[in-house]
């Protein structure tokens, strides 16, 4: 992974920069080499680089003050939530300051009548729901990392989760933000009302991977918990048939909260690991529906009827909470099971649902060509694939082969009408593949937005756009310093 040369001027001014940051953020600056190491990577652990320093502000004002110092000193800033990005979204550069919002985790306002919660963005995803669960409400987007990941990162990556088939992803549940621009200006977008009066700037801030501003507060939509939920497990003898079943369920007007798909390698690995009692078959679907008991029964009848038309090898309905938990057990331990066997990288491309069988077949063929095993476990209802490519990090060259294989899969996703990333973001990981999805003028238009919010290109450097494409802007910004 190529990163830009660190700015030698910044490196040489480290002492002064730390001193200035300390002046505005007493007690909130980390700069000892041993301590900044804790921030050298996110969940894409293959890439690491300790930052120049780390600041941990407690208020929006402190964020603004820290950004002003960095801007004046020409120091790149990498915003950070909980560091669970799988795309290297919060990977530092040696000349950067990490701005972590982990100390900003307060609930600022809960309003059930108007169905929103306002929080500081360092708050974890699960604890947002935690703040309203007792009163029967929840915050819908639920990334599997929800125990750890922060709302800040969710907004930056526009994160999804297992239930987004019904409830949408972060952008559909985000009503407003308070954010600080690189020059220290505090901007409020949206709020407790529903739509933008002018351009939908909130819409472009969500998913901008920390490159437009530091988001310090968020107004999030909360919903009343459903009366109940129950899954059904359906096994098929081929991926094609399972794919066709998914498509038929969607067409029939049933709107499950989740349709999860696991292929044979994944079923076998999780079965060895978690012993959930899954049938030994080629493809498994877990379909979950919500409502009252009668409503659940009505929907499950429709789903079972559709599933039966495709001749399943197994159709198992959860009769109680215990059986429901058993059905989810394997799916939920899938990543752990894979990690138990081997190192893996997790891809995140999205494809039109109709292309599922073809794409799974091609991935199987490529797996032979590259000599690396792949297991597929993903959100089938919306075509968001998560191929896990297994490799051995201790064997020289395997990471590179694995990455090359991953790149081919993502190109395939784009070829069939899909995209490089459905919920994890581009980060550094997919930066250099952007040219496969977007033409130069498409990227130019996106970068024009960055030019407006962060004219010096100091926020979260070297992410999202290929380095070659951003070079002119980066050099111009350096020269202007």
């Amino acid at each position, binding site marked *: 992974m190529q990163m830009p040369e660190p700015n030698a001027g910044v490196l040489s001014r480290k002492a002064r920069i730390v001193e200035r940051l300390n002046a505005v953020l007493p007690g909130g600056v980390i700069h000892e080499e041993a301590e900044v190491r804790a921030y050298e990577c996110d969940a894409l652990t293959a890439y690491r680089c300790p930052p120049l320093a780390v600041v941990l502000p407690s208020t929006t004002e402190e964020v603004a003050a820290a950004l002003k110092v960095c801007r004046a000193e020409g120091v790149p800033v990498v915003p950070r939530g909980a560091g669970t990005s799988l795309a290297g979204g919060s990977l530092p550069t040696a000349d950067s300051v990490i701005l972590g919002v982990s100390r900003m985790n307060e609930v600022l306002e809960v309003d059930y009548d108007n169905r929103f919660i306002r929080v500081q963005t360092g708050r974890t995803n699960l604890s947002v729901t935690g703040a309203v669960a007792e009163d029967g409400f929840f915050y819908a987007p639920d990334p599997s990392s929800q125990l750890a990941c922060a709302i800040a990162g969710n907004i930056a990556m526009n994160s999804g989760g297992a239930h987004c088939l019904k409830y949408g992803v972060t952008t559909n549940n985000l009503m407003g933000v308070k954010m600080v621009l690189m020059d220290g200006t505090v901007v409020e977008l949206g709020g407790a009302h529903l*739509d933008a009066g*002018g351009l939908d700037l909130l*819409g472009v801030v969500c998913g901008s991977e920390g490159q437009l501003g530091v988001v310090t507060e968020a107004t999030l939509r909360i919903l009343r918990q459903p009366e109940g939920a129950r899954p059904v497990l359906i096994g098929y003898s081929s991926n094609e048939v399972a794919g066709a079943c998914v498509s038929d369920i*969607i067409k029939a007007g049933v709107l499950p909260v989740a349709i999860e798909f696991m292929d044979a390698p994944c079923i076998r690995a999780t079965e060895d690991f978690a012993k959930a009692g899954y049938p030994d078959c080629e493809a498994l679907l877990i379909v979950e529906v919500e409502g009252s008991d009668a409503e659940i029964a*009505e929907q499950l009848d429709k789903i079972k009827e559709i599933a039966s038309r495709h001749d399943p090898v197994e159709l198992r309905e959860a009769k109680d909470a215990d059986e429901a938990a058993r059905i989810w057990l394997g799916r939920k331990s899938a990543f752990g099971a894979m990690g138990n066997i081997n190192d893996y990288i997790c891809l995140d491309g999205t494809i039109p649902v109709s292309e599922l069988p073809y794409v799974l077949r091609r991935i199987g063929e490529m797996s032979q060509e590259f000599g690396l095993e792949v297991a597929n476990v993903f959100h089938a209802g919306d075509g968001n694939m998560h191929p896990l490519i297994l490799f051995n990090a201790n064997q020289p060259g395997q990471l590179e082969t694995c990455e090359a294989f991953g790149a081919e899969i993502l190109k395939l996703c784009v070829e069939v009408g899909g*995209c490089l990333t*459905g919920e994890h973001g581009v980060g550094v990981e997919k930066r250099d593949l952007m040219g496969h*999805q977007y033409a130069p003028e*498409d990227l130019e238009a*996106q970068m024009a937005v960055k030019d407006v919010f962060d004219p010096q290109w100091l926020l979260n450097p070297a992410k999202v756009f290929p380095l070659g494409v951003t070079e002119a802007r980066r050099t111009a910004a350096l020269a202007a310093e």
Partner: protein
Amino acid sequence: MRPGSEAELAEMVRQATGPLRVRGGGTRTIGDAGAGAVLETGGLAGVTLHEPGALTLVARPGTPLAEVEKLLDAEGQRLAFEPMDHRGLLGTSGTSTIGGVVAANVSGPRRIQVGACRDFLLGVRFVDGTGAVIKNGGRVMKNVTGYDLVKLLAGSRGTLGVLTEVSLKVLPKPEAVASVLIDGLDDAGAVKALARGLGSPFDVTGAAHLPQGPDGAPVTMLRIEGFAGSVDYRSVQLAALFDSMAVRVERDPQAVATTWAAVRDVAPMQGAAGDVWRISCKPSDAPGLVARLEPRAVVYDWGGGLVWALTSEGTDARARLGAFDGHATRVRGAGTTPVFPPEPGPVAALTRAIRAKFDPRGILAAGLPG
């Protein structure tokens, strides 16, 4: 000017020497786009892809909305964000286009549950003010590849570019519908009742209040949609929340459809004299805002989060409303106050700068603010 292809359109924009105004069906004439040559999208029409099993539809901007709806209907699907028809309210005629719906981010009562047009927009192609052809997003449900310019274009009213293709997520039509109706509530009581319904687990897909219903008396309405058994169950449960009030359930699909189309298209204000203001606010603030504004008539949608107010001509609603969480747009009527809500300084500066990037010559919808 009526380009027949995206390439031709791009060439026209490149060659343009003066301001341009994009025109789809001309049915949503809110705000004055200013002088300039009219650029019609009618030559860029047609649905290019409809994949019912993937819930996706791709169309060129000049495609009539009615054509899209008919095609979807044949597969038992629909545009779930329920775009309103502005013709009755604005007194316009003509054919609404899908490009116009997207460019104005037009939604309806279901917005509170499923989201707005922008939430269903999966991808766009557009020609910016320099004549460059740009694409963003795609046609898949989940896509976080690069910045989300799709949201930026939704509701941009032709100020950033001319749309040449839109991809939308569509949803199945429900098997059954019902309205739970409560009679006789005052505005504050109605908004409280709507909040109660929206805060229930019964998946309310419409929450409106008409201080003057069809028979002149106040009626508060909650809509339920889904499979027949489920709609039965939920409408009974929902009605039970209001058993101390004059509550009834309407199950006739035709009657339910008519009721909600009237809310969607603000029927009570069609043809009535006066200005029409659209106020987006925190739902529980709505009755207080209405009291300050003292309009001639009012319709509450989105549980109170959307207020349509009919005022006497020339009323400066913003002056009367004062500061609040939200904004007000004058969708009909003339006056010296701006049509669109002025934005706070830093936001206005960002908007202006983005426009200058996408349209450096300032030729697109030059009359619109921002």
